[in-house]
């Protein structure tokens, strides 16, 4: 492997992408001020249906990466990541990650063309909110941890078990459930099912989350009839890719949040007077802000790069997804801790907004796998690759 891995990356956004970012940012400045975030985080659904509709109709975000033939915009991962970064800045409360990233990609990567044609247009139009249920109560990340059994019964499948940490699970109109054929392990034997939330045997319960701006559910499946999407036992690779995409999207959301926190903190230190001077004039504060900027920009670079790699269908995408997620997790949390610290006592109050991002940072840190898990995962990918490459070299004529 060339070090560091280099896909055919641009290392910059195109003019169109810059315009797209501006558009999303302007929209979110209007529709997702922290007053709205605070209002929505108190609601059960956790999002504003009218804003969601505008996201769909005015910006076409809800179907951003869905193919045009299915009613989407057919954009790439870099564009999704631009949107996610802006949503992270604005702390948008909406089921974008659940429906437009997780569910839309799972369907596109796993389901049959027919099912995709049936499900994706309404997701793209923002009319249906879908979500993907993968993680189970033990909280272990990755597809290997999927244990919920799908039993074949005559012409169909029956699910029995529980999914946890289901994003927007209580408000979703369609549940996509990853389940396993009994006896299988790893990424083998996995299938994706569609379940209606009001199907017999489905019980949904809202989880109390540390980050109230993102809703999660625990869903019990008690002998639930489920509709298979795609081929039985072959969902593994598609789900792995979906989770890589989600990790990259989340990494970009995180760097957006971190950058916003840094900006807000800088603005605060400049106006906050202590001892007759702005606290931004204290060298210790200046140096810490410089380090924060470094952390944020490094994490941004990795998050952007991973998005480009995914668009380029790079072999390194899994490696880079984990790298970007681990990097963004550390940078966001560090920034959030520093942001509260530099706001002083005010930063610890509920009235001041910093804690909203802090909670998002803390929760995102472990979502889809904590930094240690992703570091281990990237190293395993690297080791496999290195060993293959040294074997290949040894096999070659000198």
């Amino acid at each position, binding site marked *: 492997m060339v070090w560091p891995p280099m896909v055919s990356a641009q290392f910059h956004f195109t003019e169109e992408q810059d315009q797209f970012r501006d558009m999303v940012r302007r929209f979110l400045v209007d529709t997702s001020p922290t007053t709205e975030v605070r209002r929505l985080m108190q609601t059960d659904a956790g999002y504003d249906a009218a804003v969601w509709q505008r996201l769909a109709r005015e910006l076409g975000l809800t179907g951003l990466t869905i193919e045009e033939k299915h009613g989407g915009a057919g954009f790439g991962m870099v564009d999704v990541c631009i949107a996610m970064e802006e949503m992270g800045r604005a702390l948008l409360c909406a089921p974008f990650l659940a429906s437009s990233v997780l569910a839309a990609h799972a369907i596109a990567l796993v389901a049959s063309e027919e099912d995709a044609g049936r499900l994706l247009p309404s997701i793209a139009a923002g009319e249906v909110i879908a979500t993907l249920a993968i*993680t189970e109560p033990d*909280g*272990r*990340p990755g597809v290997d941890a999927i244990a919920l059994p799908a039993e074949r019964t005559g012409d169909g499948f029956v699910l029995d078990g529980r999914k*946890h*940490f289901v994003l927007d699970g209580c408000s979703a109109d369609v549940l996509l459930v990853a389940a396993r054929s009994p006896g299988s392990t790893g990424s083998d034997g996995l299938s994706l099912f569609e379940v209606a939330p009001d199907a017999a045997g489905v019980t949904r319960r809202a*989880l*109390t*989350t*540390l*980050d109230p701006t993102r809703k*999660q559910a*625990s869903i019990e499946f008690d002998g639930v009839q489920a509709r298979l999407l795609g081929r039985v036992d072959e969902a593994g690779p598609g789900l792995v890719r979906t989770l890589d995409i989600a990790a990259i999207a989340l990494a970009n959301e995180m760097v957006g949040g971190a950058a916003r926190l840094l900006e807000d903190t800088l603005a605060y230190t400049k*106006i*906050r*007077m*202590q*001892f*007759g*001077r*702005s606290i931004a004039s*204290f060298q*210790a*504060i200046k140096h810490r802000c410089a380090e924060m900027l470094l952390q944020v920009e490094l994490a941004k670079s990795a998050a952007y790069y991973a998005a480009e790699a995914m668009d380029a269908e790079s072999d390194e995408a899994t490696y880079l997804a984990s790298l970007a997620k681990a990097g963004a997790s550390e940078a966001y949390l560090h920034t959030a*801790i520093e942001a*509260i*610290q530099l706001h*002083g*006592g*005010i*930063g*610890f*109050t*509920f*009235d*001041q907004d*910093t*804690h909203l991002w*802090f*909670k998002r940072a*803390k*929760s995102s*840190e*472990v*979502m889809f796998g*904590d930094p*240690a*898990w992703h570091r*281990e995962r990237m190293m395993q990918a690297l080791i496999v690759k290195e060993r293959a490459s040294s074997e290949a070299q040894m096999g070659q004529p000198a």
Partner: protein
Amino acid sequence: MSEPSESSVRADVSGWLESNWDPDLGLNEWRNKLVDSGWGMPEWPTDWFGRDFSASLVRAVEQEFAKQGAIGVARGGIRLLAAATLLEHGSTAHKEQFLRRILTGEDNWCQLFSEPGSGSDLAGATTRADLDGDQWVVNGQKLWTTSAHHANWGLLLARTDWDAPKHEGLSYFVIDMRQPGVDVQPLAQMNGHASFNQVFFDDAVVERGHLIGEIGKGWQVAMTTLAHERRRADGLRSGYSDVGADIERVGRIYDEEQVETATVMEPYTWYPQRAGRVDLALSRALDSGRIEDPTVRQELAKLLILSSSAEWTARRARAAQQMGKPQGPEGSLGKLAASHVARAAARVHTLISGADAMLAGSDGAEDGIVAEILLSVPAVSIAGGTDEIQRNIIAERVLQMPKETRFDKGPFRDVPKNVSTRLAGENE
């Protein structure tokens, strides 16, 4: 006059307790007796409910109380800081009016120093007190006021001269908290608790006689309060904590005391969580099986090294203090070490929790305690002097590095300061 011997003191106090202590007395009745006897506050002057005893005799008295399970004077909240300040700077009238009811627990006090615009910089207070005939009229806002909603008296630092330099334009008052011009509002924290209050003054009044010390000398009086606060934070009141542990605490007076204690302690319920709960980290790792992960072991070990070393450093400081050795550097470091411990603990709790770190309340690990840890930890490095202030203090006082250049020397009117933040609850 030389001090009595420890043994005679022990005999005196235990004899007095045998004659007077009765768990079925009312708390107030007992404490009034205690105040009159001089055994309640033996370190205080003989003129004011005390016996002018040295620290070692005071300890002997306290041990005799503990042996018999006898309840002492009220100590909760900031009452003893108020009393110490009044003893040093108050007039005879002040002492007569306030000291007894401080000790009996009938009056509750709060400290009105911090403001939204002056966090680390207490002397930058902009709450104003203007003399109008026979009373001071107070306008402004205080913040981080613990138990203000229970207090009937407040220790108020307010600006009476805007043309004097910052530290010279402040005066110190006792203000009646139960008046229309005083509005106490709880202040919600990011972790869901509300340990502090905001206090708004809208033409609140202080009677002229409730100025403590001289006009413009309020900073010096406040330094007395703060010095006692620091001493209390540093002090070690144990050493006899096991004495009397086997006394069965049954009787009306204990019930009354329990209510008092619960009220005083209410703001502090989340404090164990903000410290990071190192104890829980170890047991959680063991119980959950996460201890099998070498990365968890490494991170947990780092946390244990840090927290144990901090604990032993504190013990070194106390041992030196108890031996009368000069204070070493280890004494100034506790607060800063606590921040490191708390942050490391939050990291380890997150690592142990994995996805569960996203949950709170009854869905969260340890019935929500872990979520409370993760959300409370940022307080440690801010409350009671930020890490930045601690590092300044360590650098300047312990390491003798040069002081920061002052930018706030001229008339306070001209010093750059924060525009007062006007939050809900205040009427301009």
